[in-house]
């Protein structure tokens, strides 16, 4: 059972966001980059599958030089192969990313594809289903539980107030939601072993893709801004619970008009 896990490297969720000088992007200076948290669930599921059924776990990413670090971290956790499509992400939209990944995946062998349900930061949640469409595969999106059988897969998917149980044929695209598993940490042995695994690095041109198909065609970011500063609200002492409750009630009724 061979898995491919598509990962993305994103700013740390603890990072303070500053706007770049062009007013259309964030300032990356001093920002620490991490593997997108949902991708960790995707990777863990693939590693568990390898442990149960054998096969390879290939981690694949599209991004600049720094993205190689995300691949190294994933190898240290238990991925067995790594592919880095090296390229600048500026002006690339989700369909552009999906096209790059689809082209790279076309050169690999796989039974199942994993991604996080979204890349934390850009928060688009688009690449998984787009990739499934480009590869003409079924998609199992926002998955909290997965069972892989012979040529088929059953997934629990989170929807509003309910859970859908979906059955699909393999190969399939699975996007991971929090709760799917508990991602492991890298062991020292894993970190050492990961250093010996070569990363297969390619360019967009190596994949036979034209830059025009992936960049700036369908949508452009015209502005990036911070949320407006909120005026400080009222702060009261809740030492007398009954009086505090009354004040909150007045606020809920008169200001929020929520009663």
């Amino acid at each position, binding site marked *: 059972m061979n898995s491919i896990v598509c990962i993305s490297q994103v700013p740390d*969720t603890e990072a303070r966001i500053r706007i770049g000088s062009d007013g259309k992007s964030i300032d990356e200076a001093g920002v620490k980059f991490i593997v997108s948290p949902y991708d960790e669930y995707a990777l863990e599921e693939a590693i568990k599958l390898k442990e149960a059924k054998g096969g390879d776990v290939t981690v694949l990413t599209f991004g600049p030089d720094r993205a190689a670090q995300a691949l190294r971290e994933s190898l240290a956790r238990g991925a067995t192969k790594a592919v880095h499509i090296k390229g600048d992400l500026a002006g690339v939209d989700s369909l552009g990313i999906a096209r790059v990944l689809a082209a790279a995946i076309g050169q690999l062998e796989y039974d199942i594809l994993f991604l996080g349900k979204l890349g934390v930061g850009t928060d688009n*949640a688009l690449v998984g289903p787009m990739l499934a469409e480009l590869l003409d*595969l*079924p998609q199992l999106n926002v998955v909290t539980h997965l069972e892989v059988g012979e040529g088929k897969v059953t997934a629990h998917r989170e929807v509003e107030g*309910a859970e859908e149980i979906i059955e699909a*044929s393999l190969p399939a695209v699975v996007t991971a939601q929090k709760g799917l598993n508990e991602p492991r940490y890298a062991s020292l042995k894993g970190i050492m072993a990961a250093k010996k695994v070569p990363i297969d690095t390619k360019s967009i041109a190596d994949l036979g893709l034209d830059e025009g198909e992936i960049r700036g065609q369908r949508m452009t970011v015209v502005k990036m801004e911070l*949320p407006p500063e909120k005026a400080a*609200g009222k702060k009261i002492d*809740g030492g007398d619970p009954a009086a505090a409750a009354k004040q909150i009630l007045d606020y*809920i009724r008169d200001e929020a008009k929520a009663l």
Partner: protein
Amino acid sequence: MANVLVICEIKDGKLKKASREALSIGRKIAEAAGGELQAAVLGASASSLAEEAGKFGAKTLFAAGDASLDQYETESWTAAAKAAVEAASPGVVLLGATAAGRDLAPRLAARLGVGVASDVDRLEWDGGKLKARRPVYSGKAFATVQMEAEPAIATLRPNAFPAEEAGGGAAAVKEVSFQAPASKAKVAEVKSTTGGELTIAEADIIVSGGRGLKEADNYKVIRELAQALGGAVGASRATVDAGWIDHQHQVGQTGRVVSPNLYIAAGISGAIQHLAGMSSSKHIVAINKDAEAPIFRIADLGVVGDLFTILPALTEEVKKAKGA
């Protein structure tokens, strides 16, 4: 001139709230673009929604009236939605950012070779193009994107656009025929997980609890207030990670970004990831023992005190006020 097509969802025989919200902003975009508002409705009862869609300003309803579409499934809905788009040839396609909308929009966009602005909270028609503002970095910043390809597709964050009736007559129904695909994925079962409780994604009111609750059982003070207010129960990451409550209640980065009318945070200090996920709420009340808690920086009303005495008193006040 551009028409606006809203791909709608049905719940209990009516349009879902997210679909009514999409129609309402869709009507304004259509007016600005000199076009018409259109609805696409999928499922056996599709044409029966013509009246309701008309009330929200839809002139035409493209109905894929096939019972195989009653349950949302990616592949059949993508085929039907694409047929509706071809029949309507809109400049803009809108969907609610619901579980189905988020699953369908990217698949449809890839099939059409166009982009998607996801989870949008502001939309405008400017110089012949759709401009969409969307929270990024879980609300720590906003990106405005200009859609260059047609149709421009956007999914709309629940509660960001008010649902407003326009008082129109029933929409004219046009049947859409589509080729049902041999789906590779089928929904075998749908299980309710909230027992009918409201979900944080859709709720107008959210009452959230954090580490200050001390233990799982104490979520009952949160639940009781949420129930009295008719709201949903939210949670901080710490309490979800501790196993006190299910992840679907989690607000913030790695949870859900929400913007309800009223957000009550009790025992939540306000980690940056949590604040990012709820700071766009319209009215924020915070109750915390620690007067220095970061949550007070964004609260409209902050109460420094003990949630275990204040919340039950508030629940009683709410019940009294509602009974009156």
